[in-house]
């Protein structure tokens, strides 16, 4: 006799016959009772209204539960892309049931490039005393796992660290504007981050106040490559957008001169010459280039002589100037792709007139000029990114339809000349010009009846050349960022072209999205999600990428908790994250 049968026959453990009956009522929903017990139950129910009512309740509960089958929750469409990448990472980590006693090292090539770039950028920043450059260097230099120390050889494999050990990274700071102190630029210095397995004890970081710059709350701030100036986009009282240029305050913390440059021109990033209105950066490897002389074609954006987002205190430091100009107003900026050119001489963005009399066009502002100009005039053009110092602009091939294939052109910002660059949408070209994250697929008119957004296709890594996007050699599942159609996306590469962060809007309002940091295997042309790196984390629009870190702001929390700045930073062997205390809607300076 089975144990179950023995249990069922132990009738003396019931408090009363009703309890026994009710238990049997539940049991028989799943398996038939033994004949004897079933007969007993039927007999009991025939004479017990209360137990009959309980039986009816059980049946009703079951029906209610089963009705949930008609409303199955749908998994996210990129679940396979995420899962396959995680499996691939697990496979590379050793696959079967191996716990990570040694963290996965980044490819040597990636580190070699990264280390040189970090050193070069670090030296450039130090000499220029820039706001968001190196700020410390003590812990990073002392740690055996500090990535990017000038004396470290990239060929030496540094010892792995235990999970609970903080990860030392090059000391750098990220900038943001906190609305706890309205309009105030803050600096958050990070030289250690926490591994993903050591989250509970990771201390939160406090930002350092640099200076009050904005009278109001901008919605987007983008620093120039030299980080002395920034372009800010803000809503005005009139409900339109205004684009202004401001000086950024200098860092209060001076970096420690502990590093020396590495003489390796081949691995250096794209040179960053100074903009016409900025102080030159002293760097042996960079040669300033003159900005284009020709005036851009197209009509000028409305310039406001008295910007409403005017600086009330342009800078907390004596060296800063009060140069605040509005380069565009009476418009509505579209999307999150606005960016400075690699050499810092141009700034491009997409916008349409605030009165909706025309569709989206691409605007360019030449640094030093007093206004942005509209470079395209078709009312359906969207800025994608910069490739060298040409704008990559996409538009629907049939803007009169509601659905269309995309076309992309390279546009010279100086004269508006266009050259064909393929049939993809909004390529975000890496600084080497060899790869891009692009939308491959069709477009549709958005619900607003005016904007063009992705319809069917996928966001993926592609090879890139002067002719546009080509096939990438990596397998499909290693290239795809998402196969859902986001309303908007924002892609930012680091200086090496070996790290890229992708923000994909959630829903239709661009208020919040998901951010993922990828490492790019440049030999195999594939995207890698590394342990500890953010994957599909919820993030507000606008993040900064570069100098070995990615910074973003989280959405507001439950119970009224404010947003936080989170920073993922990487060393030779690890990626880790730290975050700030919650605050009022911080805006990361990109």
């Amino acid at each position, binding site marked *: 006799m089975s144990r179950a049968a023995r249990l069922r026959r132990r009738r003396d453990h019931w408090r009363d016959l009703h309890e026994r009956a*009710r238990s049997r009522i539940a049991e028989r929903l799943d398996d038939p009772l033994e004949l004897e017990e079933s007969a007993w139950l039927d007999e009991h129910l025939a004479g017990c209204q209360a137990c009959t009512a309980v039986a009816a309740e059980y049946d009703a*509960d079951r029906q209610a539960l089963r009705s*949930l089958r008609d409303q199955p*929750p*749908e*998994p996210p469409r990129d679940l396979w892309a995420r899962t*396959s990448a995680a499996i691939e990472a697990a496979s590379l980590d050793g696959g*079967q049931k191996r716990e990570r006693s040694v963290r996965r090292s980044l490819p040597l090539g990636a580190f070699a490039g990264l280390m040189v770039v970090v050193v070069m950028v670090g030296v450039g920043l130090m000499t220029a005393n820039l706001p968001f450059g190196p700020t410390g260097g003590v812990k990073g230099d002392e740690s055996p796992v500090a990535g990017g120390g000038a004396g470290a050889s990239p060929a030496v494999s540094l010892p792995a660290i235990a999970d609970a050990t903080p990860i030392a990274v090059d000391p750098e700071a990220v900038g943001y504007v906190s609305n706890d102190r309205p309009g105030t630029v803050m600096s958050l210095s990070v030289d250690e981050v926490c591994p993903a397995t050591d*989250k509970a004890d990771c201390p939160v970081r406090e930002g350092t106040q640099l200076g009050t710059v904005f009278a109001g709350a901008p919605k987007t701030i983008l620093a120039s490559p030299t980080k002395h100036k920034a372009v800010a986009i803000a809503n005005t009282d009139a409900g339109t957008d205004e684009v202004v240029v401001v000086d950024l305050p200098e860092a209060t913390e001076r970096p420690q001169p502990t590093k020396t440059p590495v003489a390796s021109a081949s691995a250096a990033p794209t040179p960053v010459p100074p903009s016409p209105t900025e102080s030159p950066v002293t760097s042996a490897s960079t040669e300033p280039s003159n900005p284009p002389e020709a005036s851009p074609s197209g009509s000028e954006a409305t310039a406001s002589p008295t910007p409403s987002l005017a600086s009330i205190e342009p800078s907390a430091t004596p060296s800063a100037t009060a140069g605040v100009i509005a380069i565009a107003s009476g418009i509505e900026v579209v999307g999150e792709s606005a960016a400075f050119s690699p050499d810092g001489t141009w700034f491009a963005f997409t916008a349409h007139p605030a009165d909706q009399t025309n569709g989206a066009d691409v605007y360019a502002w030449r640094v030093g000029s007093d206004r942005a100009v509209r470079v395209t005039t078709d009312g359906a053009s969207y800025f994608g990114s910069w490739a060298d110092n040409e704008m990559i602009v996409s538009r629907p091939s049939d803007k009169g339809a509601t659905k269309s294939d995309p076309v992309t052109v390279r546009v010279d910002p100086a004269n508006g000349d266009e050259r064909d660059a393929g049939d993809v949408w909004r390529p975000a070209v890496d600084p080497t010009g060899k790869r891009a994250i692009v939308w491959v697929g069709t477009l549709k008119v958005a619900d607003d009846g005016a904007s063009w957004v992705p319809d069917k296709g996928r966001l993926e890594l592609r090879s890139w050349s002067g002719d546009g996007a080509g096939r990438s050699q990596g397998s499909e599942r290693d290239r795809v960022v998402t196969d859902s159609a986001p309303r908007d996306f924002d892609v930012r590469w680091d200086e090496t072209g070996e790290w890229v962060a992708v923000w994909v809007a959630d829903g239709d309002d661009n208020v919040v999205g998901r951010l993922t940091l990828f490492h790019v295997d440049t030999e195999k042309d594939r995207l890698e999600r590394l342990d500890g790196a953010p994957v599909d984390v919820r993030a507000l629009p606008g993040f900064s990428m570069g100098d070995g870190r990615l910074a973003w702001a989280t959405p507001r*929390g439950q119970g009224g908790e404010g947003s936080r700045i989170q920073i993922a930073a990487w060393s030779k062997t690890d990626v880790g994250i730290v975050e700030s205390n919650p605050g009022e809607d911080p805006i990361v300076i990109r």
Partner: protein
Amino acid sequence: MSGVWDRDEAGAFIEELFAKHNGEIYAYLFRMMRDSELAADMTQDAFVKAYKNYDTLEKPENARAWLYQIAHRVALDEIRRRKIVRFLPWTGESRGSAPSAEHLVMDARLSGDLQRALAKIPERQRAALLLAELHDMTGLELAAALGVSHVAARALLTRARGSLRQALAAEREADAAAEAARDNGHDRGRPAEVDR
């Protein structure tokens, strides 16, 4: 299948398994956790664990129950972890972050007495009920998914039905009390009718 672990074979098998079952595994984890983002992360985690433990699957015909067992453990681990420390990890959210719009829609879809009652019963009982009633698992398959004996699975299911009935009754009583309170409030606030 058991014994030698072949990376390519495991990868191909898991890909096939994902195509067949990812929807139901996600649904199970969503119903257990009531959090769409967390469910997605946990589904991913479950399939990665399945990949790593491919050699523990003895018979391909048992793959579904085996997969559910992995997902079930992932869910219990997460629930246990949340009982120990109250924070949301980097890989998901900042501490105390807001639910997504998708989450709210999902929550609304499953809201009501039943969902609240389900959330109140012990997680193992909840798992047993969900697997039996929504995921068509019975007998040995249910036992395998729950990682218990057949007898224990049956007993768990019986207890779960009893717990749910009681929890639902409590929810309905609370609803009725709240509605009565609202009605009283409306009556007090409503202006008296005036004879014309």
